[in-house]
């Protein structure tokens, strides 16, 4: 049975969270690390934006600043997420791993199957989006929010998105991020992220037609640790792997510190998408 590393749930600030994930991703590209599943949350409320998003256009930076919301740019693609009360996971593995595939969408499907089973263990019946819905792509429309539109194989409960995900791939390795909503504050979300028509009086109400949360479905009966356990157990069962608890290696820790200093703790990266020693 293949051994994976699982880094147990912990809370870090936004910049450390992204530096840790990229360090794991980069070290895995050298080819001698097992697949790594990591669960985490965020010390302060955070808006994470996708690699290519325009922070100044797609995030209300003044609102975030006034309300102590950190803004960090992810190494993965996709749209913005407000991490207020969610469980975030990251999964790093080789494209050549027998459970995954060179086919990008197949990787999303396999991971979503694992998550569905994990959510079922806590009493939530989620389903995979069969076909992605196209985003409106006019220059006038700003739809910067990850949960506005489900992509193929993302998870829905009664037609509303409960988990968003995004990937980056390099040198035969992928990193997938996902955010499972435990609860959502639609007013705060509409204020922090530029979402089309969301700044109107009934904007938050309309937002809730596309998004849902664990609390809305089953109340407060589940702890974050219980959720992590449910999902972990289902990864083990679905993929027939052994999850071995571990921490990041000294090499990953050194790289994390470097990435934190030169990239993730800088406005240059988070607001402009550039970094020292990068482009």
């Amino acid at each position, binding site marked *: 049975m293949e051994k994976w590393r699982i880094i147990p749930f912990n809370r870090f600030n936004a910049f450390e969270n992204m530096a840790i994930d990229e360090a794991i991703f980069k070290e895995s590209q050298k080819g001698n690390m097992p697949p790594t599943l990591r669960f985490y949350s965020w010390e302060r409320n955070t808006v994470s934006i*996708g*690699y*290519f998003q325009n922070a100044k256009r797609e995030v209300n930076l003044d609102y975030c600043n006034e309300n102590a919301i950190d803004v960090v740019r992810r*190494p*993965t*693609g996709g749209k913005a997420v407000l991490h207020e009360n969610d469980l975030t996971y990251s999964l790093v593995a080789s494209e*050549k791993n027998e459970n995954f*595939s*060179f*086919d*990008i*969408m*197949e990787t*999303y499907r396999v991971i979503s199957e694992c998550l569905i089973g994990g959510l079922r263990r806590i009493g939530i019946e989620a389903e995979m989006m069969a076909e*992605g819905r196209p985003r409106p792509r006019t220059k006038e429309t700003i739809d910067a929010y990850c949960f506005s539109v489900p*992509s193929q194989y993302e998870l829905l409960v009664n037609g509303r998105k409960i988990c968003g995900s*995004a*990937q*980056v*791939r*390099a*040198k035969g390795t*992928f990193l997938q991020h996902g955010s499972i909503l435990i609860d959502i504050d639609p007013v705060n979300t509409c204020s922090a992220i530029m979402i089309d028509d969301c700044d109107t009086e009934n904007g938050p109400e309309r937002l809730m037609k596309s998004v849902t949360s664990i609390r809305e479905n089953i109340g407060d009966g589940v702890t974050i640790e219980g959720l992590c356990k449910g999902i972990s157990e289902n990864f083990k069962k679905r993929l027939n792997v052994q999850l071995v608890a571990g921490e990041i290696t000294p090499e990953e820790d050194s790289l994390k510190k470097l990435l934190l200093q030169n990239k993730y703790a800088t406005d240059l990266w988070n607001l402009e*998408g550039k970094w020292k020693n990068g*482009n």
Partner: protein
Amino acid sequence: MSVFPDDLLYSREHMWVRVDGNITTVGITDYGQEKLGEILSIKLPKADSSVEQDEPFAVIESSKTVDELISPVSGDIISVNEDLSDDVGIINSDPYDTGWMIAVAIKDLSMLDNLLDSYEYGDYVDEEEEAV
């Protein structure tokens, strides 16, 4: 069904190279763009910089993922396809012509020996497809 013109060289990271003396033009293969899906954005290097063979030179975003593009050659970038900033979709629709990415002046032609011809690349893609 992906197309691989036989006047180009190819890397295992799904990039193509057109050689004209010591000037090479680089882009993504038809198979590479199909694998990524709809291309949404690309970040290319500046025209006065250099690239290293087998090292990342650009980042591309599709509807499915963000992907680092790996340079098939080493050398000085002499030109960057500015048209991609207006319409990145031409990478999907015309990957071997108007969807080119960078032109690179190379010093050592022997680095091209590391690349595949169209038949070898076709076989490599078949193997990758069988592994899916």
